[in-house]
C-alpha cells in the first residue's frame, strides 16, 4: 500500500528544550496510527510539523509524496487536520464556517454545497447548522471541527485528541467515524485514552521526551509486559500449597507470584518463561490434581501498563 505520510528525522527545539528530537514515521493507506505519549512528550509539536503549521529545525515531511516545506499549498490540499481543542471561528454559524472552509479549499459553489452536505451528514450536524459555533455544546463543536477536516475527503487525516472531553456516546461516534474512513486514508490520531488505540488504531507509536520509544500493534506492545501471557488464579488461601505443588509439574513456568489477598482468597499470577501459557492447560492440570479454584483467566495486561512501563523506564534510563 502507498505510503501517504512520511516524516523523516523531525526535530524541533523551543529555547533550550528539545520538544521533538528525531522522530521518523510512515503511515500507509488504510492504516490508523495511534500516537501516544505523556503530556509534554512532543505529540502535538510533531503533529504541528506533519501538518505544516510549524517548520521543523531539521527533517522533512511528505504528504502523499509531496514535500510539505517546498510546496506547502499542494501538500496541505491533501491533508485534513483537526487541531488540539478543535478550534473554529466561534462567531460564525456552523454552516457559514463549513462554507468558508469549502471556499478556501477551492470548490465552486455547487461542489462546495455538495461537500458541505456530505460532511454535515457524516458528522451528524444537520440540526445545528444555523447556530453560532460558540453557542454549541462541546460535542457539537468537536463535530464541526471534524467536518471541517474531512470536508475535502483528504487522503491524509491528522487528528489531535479527537475524543478529548467527550462523553462515552460521543467518543463512540467519533471512533466509528474514524473507523469508517480508515480504508482509503492514512490517519494519525493522538490520544491519552489507550482503549481507543485498541478500538480504532491498526498500529501505535509511543513517544516520550521527543523520541519514539515503542512502535507496533496494540498486541505487540502488550507482549512487552511481564504479565503478558500470565495466568491469574484466585483460590482459598489454604489451597495455595497444593496449587504450587501441582503446577510444579508444568514445564515453562518461570515463577508464581502472589498478587493480593481478599476475603480469604489469594490471587496468584503464574508467569510463563516465554510465550503464553494456555489457561486451558493450567485448568486441566488443576482439575486432574483436584485443586479447586475460584477464578482462572489469562492476563493480557493492558495498554495503560505498557504505557506506564515504557514511559517511566525510559525516564529512569535518562536520569
Amino acid at each position: 500500500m502507498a505510503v501517504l505520510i512520511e516524516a523523516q528525522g523531525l526535530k524541533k527545539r523551543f529555547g533550550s528544550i528539545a520538544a521533538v528530537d528525531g522522530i521518523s514515521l510512515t503511515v500507509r493507506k488504510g492504516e490508523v496510527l495511534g500516537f501516544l505519549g505523556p503530556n509534554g512528550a512532543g505529540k502535538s509539536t510533531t503533529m504541528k510539523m506533519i501538518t505544516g503549521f510549524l517548520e521543523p529545525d531539521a527533517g522533512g515531511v511528505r504528504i502523499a509524496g509531496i514535500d510539505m516545506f517546498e510546496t506547502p499549498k499542494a501538500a496541505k490540499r491533501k491533508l485534513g487536520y483537526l487541531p488540539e481543542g478543535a478550534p473554529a471561528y466561534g462567531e460564525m454559524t456552523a454552516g457559514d464556517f463549513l462554507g468558508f472552509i469549502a471556499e478556501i479549499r477551492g470548490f465552486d459553489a455547487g461542489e462546495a454545497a455538495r461537500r458541505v452536505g456530505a460532511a454535515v451528514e457524516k458528522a451528524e450536524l444537520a440540526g445545528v447548522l444555523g447556530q453560532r459555533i460558540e453557542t454549541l455544546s462541546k460535542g457539537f463543536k468537536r463535530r464541526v471541527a471534524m467536518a471541517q477536516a474531512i470536508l475535502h475527503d483528504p487522503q491524509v487525516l491528522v487528528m489531535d485528541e479527537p475524543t478529548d472531553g467527550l462523553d462515552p456516546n460521543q467518543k463512540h461516534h467519533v471512533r466509528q467515524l474514524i473507523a469508517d474512513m480508515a480504508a482509503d486514508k492514512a490517519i494519525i490520531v493522538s490520544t491519552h485514552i489507550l482503549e481507543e488505540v485498541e478500538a480504532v488504531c491498526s498500529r501505535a507509536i509511543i513517544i516520550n521526551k521527543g523520541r519514539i520509544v515503542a512502535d507496533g500493534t496494540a498486541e505487540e506492545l502488550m507482549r512487552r509486559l511481564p504479565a503478558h501471557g500470565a495466568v491469574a488464579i484466585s483460590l482459598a488461601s489454604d489451597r495455595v500449597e497444593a496449587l504450587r505443588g501441582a503446577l510444579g509439574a508444568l514445564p515453562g513456568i518461570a515463577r508464581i507470584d502472589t498478587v493480593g489477598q481478599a476475603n480469604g482468597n489469594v490471587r496468584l499470577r503464574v508467569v510463563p518463561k516465554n510465550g503464553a501459557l494456555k489457561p486451558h492447560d493450567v485448568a486441566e492440570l488443576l482439575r486432574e490434581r483436584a485443586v479447586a479454584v475460584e477464578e482462572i483467566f489469562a492476563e493480557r495486561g493492558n495498554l495503560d501498563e505498557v504505557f506506564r512501563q515504557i514511559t517511566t523506564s525510559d525516564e529512569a534510563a535518562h536520569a
Partner: protein
Amino acid sequence: MPEICRNTWTIAKREFKGYFATPLAAVFLTIFVALTGAFTFRLGGFFDRGIADLNPFFQYHPWLYLFLVPAVAMRLWAEERKAGTIELLMTLPISPWEAILGKFLAAWAFIGVALLLTLPMWITVNVLGSPDNGVILVSYIGSFLMAGAFLAIGSAVSAATRNQVIAFIVAATICFLLVMAGLDLILNYVRGLVPGFLISAVASLSFLTHFDRITKGVVDLSSLVFYASLIVFALFANRVLVELKKAD
C-alpha cells in the same frame, strides 16, 4: 481569478463579516460618526469659522484613529492565536501572505465603511456653501490612507500577542509616537539632542506632517509614498511576527 486573489478575497470576506457578527461593528461605527461630528462642530468650530470647508472635520482624524483603529486591528491576529484558530488557518492551503492581506483588507474596508458614513458632512458643507470638492475628495483619500497605515501597524502588533488589550495599548502607543513626531512640542525637545537633518527626518515620519499637507489639497508623491511604504513595512513585520509567534 488568480489563486492569490481568490484566497485573499475569501479570507477578507470572512473577516469583514466577522466584524458585523458581534456588537463591535455597531459600537465602532456609532462612536466614529458621533465623535467626528462632535469634534467638527464643537472643537473645530465648524459654524463659527464661516468657511465652507471640511478642515475642522479632517483635522481631528489622526487623533480619532489613534484610538479607534487599534480597536479595529487588535483582534486580527491576537484572537486567532487565543482561540487556536491560527492553527486551522495556517494549515489550510493558503499562503501566509494571503491570510495577512485578506485580514488587513477586511479591516481597512471596515474603516472605509465608517468613513463613508461621514459623507453627510460633505453634503452639509455643499448645502451651506461652495467648498473646494477636490480638496475634500483628496482629504478623504488621504484620511483613508492614513487609517491604512495605522491599521497595518495595529495588525503587526496584534500578531505579537494573544492578548487583545495589550495589542490595543501597544498599537495605540506606537501610533501616538508617530503622530506626535510632527508636533513642535516633540521637535523642540529633539532639536537639542540631534543634528538638524535628523529633525526633518523625525518630522517627516509624522502622520500629522503628511496629513496636513494632504488636507490642504497638496498631493505630493512623498506623502503617498510615506503612507504606502509604512503599510508595506508594517505588513512585512506582520508576516515575520506571525511566523515567529505562532508556536507560542
